[in-house]
């Protein structure tokens, strides 16, 4: 399944709000996967200097990633498909 990065601008966000968002993302992904629309939150990186968050999802489609974020009520600025690369692959 393809990977996607979801970019968010979250100025002033606290660690607790990020934790709450993660919980909502995880549970919405589980629900959608159970409904037959596979989507998995893989991991996120918070960039303190720009107050941005990059969240990586694995899903059947970009639409599924968008829907999971809408259901979880987590705002985003952009969703883009990405190519995965790990040290083991090179």
């Amino acid at each position, binding site marked *: 399944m393809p990977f996607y990065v979801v970019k968010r601008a979250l100025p002033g966000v606290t660690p607790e709000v990020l*934790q709450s968002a993660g919980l909502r993302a995880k549970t919405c992904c589980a629900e959608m996967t159970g409904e037959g629309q596979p989507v998995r939150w893989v991991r996120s990186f918070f960039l303190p200097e720009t107050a941005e968050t990059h969240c990586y999802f694995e899903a059947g489609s970009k639409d599924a990633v968008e829907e999971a974020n809408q259901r979880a009520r987590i705002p985003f600025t952009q969703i883009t498909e990405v190519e995965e690369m790990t040290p083991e692959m090179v």
Partner: protein
Amino acid sequence: MGDVDTAASFAIFAAKQGGAAEVTPDHILLGCMRVISRFGIAVIGAWSVDLESLGVDWVRQPAGPRPKVAYSGETVALFDQAARIAKSTGAASVGITHLLAAFASEDAGLMGELKRTYGITNSSWRAAIAALEQAEPGSGEKTQAPEYLSPEQAAEALGIHVQTMRAYIRSERLPAYRLAGERAIRVLRSDLEKVLEPLSSGAEGKKEKEN
């Protein structure tokens, strides 16, 4: 130990069952209580809440096409509050008790209804949830089974609904004792097998009056 994922899943299911477009705090509260319940009863502090009386339907599937539900704005705020409570207690992750504690100052919806029905106050709810949190890790203490059981404990021991247990007591199929001068009823653990019948001895005849 408390499973927030499961509570959220129950909450989403309840929203879908009700045909709601959003998962509200009421659904989350039902989901949390369902996770901590045993045989349909959620015991929080001194309050035993029968989930069926709150409209929980364990099996009915949502009608029509599969609805898609999103968390409501109030539910987002509730999760945020639970995360803040988790942090204030030094917990690494958000647990079911943090979510339940986040309802303490809620006076609307289902929580407001529970407060009015059971006389729950903000502080008594917080104290009960704190006790629940303390009780969870110490489940190892449960190895010593008590000899005298409350109807709730007796129902749990047999894996039946507490209403069924009360019916056994009312119909005198199970001996029960009233604590002197109190309303509380106890049954003897060793008496429990009196309501067990072997399947071979006429299973048909045993479904008599149940209430």
